[in-house]
């Protein structure tokens, strides 16, 4: 594999993620913390995020199934989840969380439920894109760009 080319493509994917609003300045802050002692610091933090936030997503799902709905609990879980999103620079996911907070305050169950499905979708979208970024391979690059191998080699 052409390592330099893959690194260039990974850098392009990163720029795209920032330009398209999936990530923000906080992600750059994390990258600047990487050094020879912790060359995979960002990947470690992102992995920790997806491991830890799975618990919060489960809690929110369960809270949405409870009857009556405890909007205070929902708001607390979402506050924790939003905080984690903010810490890794997950801008789009974090922004979707703002809408959820407003519906919680209004005790609007349908709004909360609908918004949470969007949050989960953005969360999964970001995960796939970050997987591509951290482990670039020709297969990932083809999948990301929806192009054929021949186009990339031009």
């Amino acid at each position, binding site marked *: 594999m052409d390592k330099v080319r893959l690194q260039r493509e990974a850098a392009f994917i990163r720029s795209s993620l920032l330009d398209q609003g999936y990530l923000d300045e*906080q992600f750059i*802050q*994390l990258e*600047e*913390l990487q*050094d020879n002692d*912790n060359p995979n*610091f960002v990947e*470690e*933090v992102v992995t*920790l*995020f997806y491991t*830890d936030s799975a618990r919060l997503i489960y809690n929110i799902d369960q809270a949405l199934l409870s009857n009556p709905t405890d909007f205070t609990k929902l708001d607390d879980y979402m*506050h*924790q989840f*939003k*905080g*984690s999103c*903010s*810490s*890794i620079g997950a801008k789009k996911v974090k922004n979707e969380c703002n809408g959820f907070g407003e519906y919680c305050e209004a005790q609007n169950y349908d709004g909360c439920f609908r918004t949470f499905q969007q949050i989960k979708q953005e969360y999964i979208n970001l995960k796939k894109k970050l997987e591509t970024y951290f482990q670039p391979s020709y297969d990932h690059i083809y999948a990301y760009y929806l192009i054929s191998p021949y186009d990339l080699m031009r």
Partner: protein
Amino acid sequence: MTSRNLSTQLRALVVDDNMINRKIHQKMLNGLGVECMGVANGKEAVDVHGYGQSFDLILMDKDMPIMNGIEATKKLRSMGICSMIVGVSSRSMDVEIREFMEAGLNDYHEKPLTTAKLASIIHHIINTK
């Protein structure tokens, strides 16, 4: 910014129930030459002081289980702890910030913290030592 190879001889305690924030803030502080320890709630922060540990800087999250940042800050001040305590939170309502400050904070910052913000805090501690 302090060189990563230069120790400031300072010690910091990161108090946050979110392990991602603990990891990031500890890494930022290590990069600034500060030795760090992390705990997951206010009670653990109080306990480590009770065991005789001391710190130049305490980064105190506001919303934590078991003992929150406001309660922990009040308790530490009542124990005579004079360390610089900097409150951090993602909540930004004035009344909440005021309540946190009145508990005994030296400063407050909204999350997420940046290396630049932490560098400014560290330089203040070094200059007033």
